[in-house]
């Protein structure tokens, strides 16, 4: 389809006329630096990732993720599973989570399973949720 050449803003204007869609909004990381509004990253169903994740934003896991994970928010959906060393301010689990987990808010949904060595500040478990392992609370304040 249309080719946007970054160097030529004048060319872009011509192409805008052809395209009814809005022209490429600047989605460069440098442009979003000003506003710290992060879109959640997604590891979708069927997607498996092994490695290290470091982010200040949030991550939704519908597939599989294992490794060392440092985030501010982690959402594990019903199909998702996460394993490894997890550090996150907020973890919302509807699927499976295992490993060494350290977090502020831990929310375990009704069909979720969380196991391992868990350190939390605030914990909520909905009825039917499963939690196993060595669990410790850090003082919430």
């Amino acid at each position, binding site marked *: 389809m249309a080719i946007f050449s970054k160097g030529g803003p004048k060319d872009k204007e011509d192409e805008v006329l052809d395209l009814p869609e809005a022209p490429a909004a600047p989605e460069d990381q440098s442009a979003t630096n000003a506003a710290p509004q992060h879109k959640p990253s997604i590891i979708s169903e069927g997607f498996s990732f092994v490695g290290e994740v470091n982010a200040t934003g949030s991550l939704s896991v519908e597939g599989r993720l294992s490794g060392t994970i440092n985030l501010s928010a982690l959402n594990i959906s019903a199909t998702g599973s996460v394993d490894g060393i997890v550090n996150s301010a907020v973890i919302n689990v509807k699927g499976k989570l295992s490993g060494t987990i350290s977090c502020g808010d831990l929310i375990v949904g009704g069909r979720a399973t969380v196991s391992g060595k868990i350190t939390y500040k605030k914990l909520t478990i909905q009825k039917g949720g499963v939690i196993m392992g*060595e*669990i410790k609370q850090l003082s919430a304040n």
Partner: protein
Amino acid sequence: MSDTVVQSGCLFVGEGVTVKGNFSVPNIATVAGVLEGDISAHQVNISETGFIKGSVKADVVHVLGELHDSLVANKSLFIRSTGAVIGDVKYVEIEIEKNGVLQGQIEKINRSDTEQTPPMEPLTNTPGEA
């Protein structure tokens, strides 16, 4: 919360009362004071002012106060927002309200004696929304 109308087979430890020993309660044990020792009951309710140190075995456990050492809940364990359970915990089903505390070695067990295990799927096919 719970009706304390049924008195037979029940134990009530009032606020300010401290009891020590081993207790076998066929029905509901409500602890608003301090209980030290082992207790087995059908249901154990620990009020906000209640404190148990020892080993607790029950089908249903409601915790608004504190429970230390060891707990086996053969059916349900409810930890309310003011509640804290610290120690070795075995449960079949658990629910924790936000700010409830759970600390220690936690294990999920399968219902051993009472084999009336209902399916996990709640039957929500109530055709009353016409």
